[in-house]
């Protein structure tokens, strides 16, 4: 067994070694020194060897604690590192200009506006064209409204439902999972997973408490396997769910 002091010595030595090697590419000033280093450490430390060293619990703990200390030092200095938010926004807006424009275009008003200005009409036909233009606009509006009408009740219905409480999850047997998709509209992950887990007969565990309250819009295809559902949920930015012996673990 290594003593605490030996371990720290060893750790510092290993670190200096990995550091020197990282920098040796940058400064190949002295081939002689490099040659000596190689002969001192004939076998360079490979990823696997390092992994083995870190497999030692005490060593890993030491690295973690120092990593946390490094974070604390950094945190302590954050006041000196205030970003220029306005400048960053300008940069972001410039890089994503087309997507940001699309966001605004999705509002109906500007599109109508654009329609009128891209179709300029000759003055002599203005009366006729204006009339037909209005008629066309009316058809357009009617078209826009019509298909959305039958959709509205379904989304509102989904909206009102609170799946965790309203879904009779307990009563659904695994064999009788309905295949039509179920829409979670702005529902906390907590309730969502409880419902999904109940149907598949697994438990839910939140290692990450903050994740409970994340809200999502998610279409749950109930015919999908549990793995497939989890895979889809994991595509969300803030979600990391693992499956461990009949348990969903949210990290």
């Amino acid at each position: 067994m290594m003593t605490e002091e030996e371990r720290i010595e060893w750790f510092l030595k290993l670190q200096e070694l990995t550091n020197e090697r990282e920098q040796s590419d940058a400064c190949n000033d002295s081939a002689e020194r490099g040659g000596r280093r190689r002969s001192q450490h004939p076998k360079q430390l490979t990823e696997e060897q390092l992994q083995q060293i870190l497999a030692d619990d005490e060593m890993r703990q030491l690295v973690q604690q120092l990593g946390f200390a490094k974070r604390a030092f950094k945190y302590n200095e954050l006041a000196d590192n205030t970003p220029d938010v306005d400048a960053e926004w300008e940069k972001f807006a410039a890089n994503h200009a087309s997507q940001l424009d699309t966001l605004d275009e999705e509002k109906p008003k500007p599109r109508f506006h654009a329609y009128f200005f891209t179709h300029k009409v000759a003055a002599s036909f203005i009366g006729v064209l204006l009339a037909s233009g209005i008629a066309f606009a009316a058809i357009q509006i009617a078209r826009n409204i019509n298909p959305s009408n039958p959709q509205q009740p379904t989304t509102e219905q989904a909206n009102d439902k609170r799946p965790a409480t309203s879904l009779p999850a307990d009563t659904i047997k695994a064999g009788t999972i309905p295949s039509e998709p179920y829409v979670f509209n702005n529902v906390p992950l907590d309730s969502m997973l409880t419902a999904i887990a109940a149907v598949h007969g697994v438990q839910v565990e939140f290692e990450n408490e903050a994740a409970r309250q994340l809200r999502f819009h998610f279409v749950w295809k109930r015919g999908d396997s549990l793995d497939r559902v989890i895979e889809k949920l994991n595509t969300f930015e803030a979600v990391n769910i693992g499956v461990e012996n009949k348990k969903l673990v949210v990290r």
Partner: protein
Amino acid sequence: MTRKDVESLFKTHYAQMYHLALTLLFDEAESKDVVSEVFASLLSGSTVVRADNAKAFLLASVHHRCLNVLQHKQVQERFARLLTEGTDTLISDNTVEEQMQMEELMRYLQDNLSPLSLEIFRLRYLKEMTCQKVAEALNVSRQTVHTHLKQTVEKIRKYFNSNSKAI
């Protein structure tokens, strides 16, 4: 969501998100990229952010992305730069609690170590200089650098062991 909404989320939360990324990645460019990616993902419209939980959502997204970045780094780099890797480190998701722990550790170290020891640790690990470079910068011997680092590491160990604080 409109452009205005995105802009307002960006301007309200950018600094905090950037700071969280910095304390995980320690690299300004990488941190800015991560925060920018989180906002870019909002533009695709697949995620709906509500005003009342926007902050928690955005910070969790940054956290998640940073861990991904770290996991894709080589073990050697993580070890050499003391990057807190992966899920087995149990980094707290509660940012406030975590910040309090960091402040507490910092206070302990400031009370129990000499300014020189703190500066050596800072140059060695935050500035990522080699012991040789640190020695040159502070005009001390390499052995002195080593001794101070050892003391600092021992103090950090002592802090965690005496408080039986697990991270």
